[in-house]
């Protein structure tokens, strides 16, 4: 986790944060009128980007996703919820690159995301779904406790809205982008000093497993509790109101757990 702070020393990483954020916002904004949940989210082909940015630019991609989303918010979903959007989109990029390295889905020798083997493709799909889910969990939890939107509806919609573009659009993007980024020496592992690239250790591997566990507990548990409490999934969920204490607690444990697991890696 320390790389997300130490990276700011490097000018290239600072520039990559700005450019990633700019690209993300630029692709988000033209679709702000294609509203899915008014004031909260919309049709987002741009959701293909955070996972790709995270895998290529690591912490710079995560900050970029967070900042880019915040800028996008100014054009259609600004409010207190934007703080949760900031963290949620950070996780959307952060979780995938962390799990990619630490979950053991790809071998240590074949860690650069070229998507050339079926093993890597499966790993990509797994980490993008988990990244999407982590983002959905955090934002869903935030807006639930703010009493803005019911958890079951929001978390399920965001999970789908994030993971579908990440997979359909994100994979072809990454396949073409990876060799260029590699050639220009812009993979985050090539930019930051070797000492600052977190080692893959027993602790970091445990952290990855814990992270997955909290994402699943938070999201699935939260959804079960929400449905049990009378909420429904997707659009039917809007018939209920947010503010269910049990949902808030379970999703909250998941959300905080994801952040804590982040510190272990």
């Amino acid at each position, binding site marked *: 986790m320390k790389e997300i702070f130490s990276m700011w020393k490097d000018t290239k990483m600072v520039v990559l944060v700005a450019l990633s954020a700019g690209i993300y916002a630029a692709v988000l904004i033209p679709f702000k009128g294609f509203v899915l949940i008014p004031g909260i989210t919309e049709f987002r082909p741009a959701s293909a980007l955070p996972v790709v940015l995270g895998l290529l630019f690591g912490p710079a991609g995560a900050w970029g996703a967070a900042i880019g989303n915040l800028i996008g918010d100014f054009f259609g979903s600004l409010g207190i919820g934007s703080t949760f959007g900031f963290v949620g989109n950070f996780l959307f990029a952060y979780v995938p690159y962390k799990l990619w390295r630490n979950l053991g889905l790809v071998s240590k020798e074949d860690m650069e995301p070229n998507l050339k083997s079926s093993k890597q493709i499966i790993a990509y799909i797994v980490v993008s779904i988990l990244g999407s889910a982590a983002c959905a969990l955090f934002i869903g939890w935030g807006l639930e406790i703010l009493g803005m939107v019911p958890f079951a509806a929001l978390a399920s919609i965001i999970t789908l809205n994030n993971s579908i573009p990440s997979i359909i659009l994100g994979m072809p993007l990454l*396949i*073409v982008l990876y*060799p*260029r980024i590699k*050639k220009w*020496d812009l993979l985050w592992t090539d930019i930051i000093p070797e000492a600052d690239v977190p080692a893959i250790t027993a602790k970091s591997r445990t952290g990855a497993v814990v992270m997955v566990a909290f994402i699943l507990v938070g999201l699935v548990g939260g959804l079960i509790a929400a449905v049990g409490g009378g909420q429904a999934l997707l659009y039917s969920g809007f018939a209920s109101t947010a503010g269910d204490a049990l949902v808030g607690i379970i999703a909250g444990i998941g959300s905080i757990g994801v952040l804590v697991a982040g510190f272990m890696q």
Partner: protein
Amino acid sequence: MSKENMIELRNLSFQYKDQKDGKALEKVNLTISKGEFVLVMGPSGAGKSTMAKCLNGLVPHFNRGEYSGEVIVNGFVVKDTPVSTMAKEIGLVFQDFESQLFSTNTKLEIAFGPENFQVPRDEIHSRILEMFDLVDLHGMENRQPSTLSGGQKQRLAIGSILSTYPKIVCMDEPTTDLDPLGKIGIFNIANKLHAAEDVTLIIIEHETEESLNADRLILMQEGKIILDGKPSDVLREVELMADLGIMPLQIPKYFLENFGTSKTELPLMPEEGIAKFKELGASLDEQQHQSLIQMDMDREKAYGDVLIEVSGLEHIYPNGNKALAGIDFSVRDGEFVALLGHNGSGKTTMVKHFNGLLMPTAGKVMVKGQNTKETSIFEVGQHVGYVFQNPDHQIFSDTVYEEVAFSPKIRGCDQEEIDIRVKEALAAVGMSGTEEEDPFSMTKGERQRIAVASVLSARPDVIILDEPTTGLDYREQRQMMELVKKLNRNGHTIIMITHTMWVVSEYAHKVAVIKDGKMMMYGTTREVFSHDEELAKSFLKTPDIVHMSNLLGKTVLSVDELKQCTKGV
């Protein structure tokens, strides 16, 4: 005269981390004294930019690789000094002006460097005023840099470097992306800086013609310095320059080839050329000149049907800008037309009407007898292909095959047909056998060819090329233009936007000059280029050889044509 050494390179070698063949710099030794103005030239890959980056430490601190030898700049050993400290000594200006502007306001842009160096606020204020004067941006205070023209942006970028008061200024191809007017602005600043004496100035440039003002001209090739001397001496090395892939000046080339004039006697500029021409007792052959004109006329008669017909074309952008004000123009089958005019004159807006990207606000555009308003860009695109200026704006595939196959595929061709077309298009641009290669790993010249091939594969009658030679070195420019010429011979009609005047004079059949949305001049290249003064109103300058022939009273378009027309001696 012994002046203080400002820059010293001792046995400097550098090889980039993943560079396979050779070194970027090989055992370079160079000394530059305080106040000198040094120009560096050489083909792409000669190591010019690498050398510039060695001066402020970007090499080896930023671009990693194998570094040996020593660079000392104003007493600092560059290898052991952080880039941000070196930045106080030496300011670097890059070709890509968009990437070196960071602010939303011109004043703040100039303040950015001094802010980093903790210059007191009042001092920054006075430097800002000074810089607006120096880089000639009066009236642009408080403008957003993004609203400036290319030339103004580059001047602002230079101002933002000069405001830190560096003792050395190094510009890496500052004019490459600029139109003629923009280039003049940069050379003016260079001359002002040179006059200021205490600034040491290093410019990497392609433009041979502007080099006479420098104190020294250095030629590089394959990481080595080949020649270092007074510009007037170096420019007389016509054959050496041609060998290196740098465009030699036309006047000395003509005299060398036609009269075998000795090196020390070679004239450099058109006016000197005239004097020498008279001294040698030469004259122009009327009959030969008439035969050139006759050939122009024969070509004119051989053109086929009208393919594009534009009448009363007006275009007003949604923001109210009137880009085109009543253009009448037509292009016949087999023509090769060059469109000239500075950026913002409306030429790109005009050609975007030819393939249906833009629709006229008034007037009409007919392509092959069909009004573009009544058809779609998909259909017009079959007949009119458009190669955009920057090949990176269209390449998206990871193999050349996929890239070139995109257009036929989307137009519903079957696999067999696609294969045939890809093969044919790649053969036409001289890139056969590269199907499986990655277009992104190619040089800019090669990517430009792939972009042309990917337009050719739709088999259009007309090909529009937007600045096809920008950013290429002389050899690549030649190759590109020979390719365009071949396409024209094979039956494609060519419409080309360009700022490179020698390209126009040697390749285009016809020329249209656009200014402020109106067509100022139109005719055969020979006709249009015979009017030096009128062209100058649109900031266009004919190539030296054309200018010289105009002074002699008959317009020729190339060194070869002038040789053909020269009588006597």
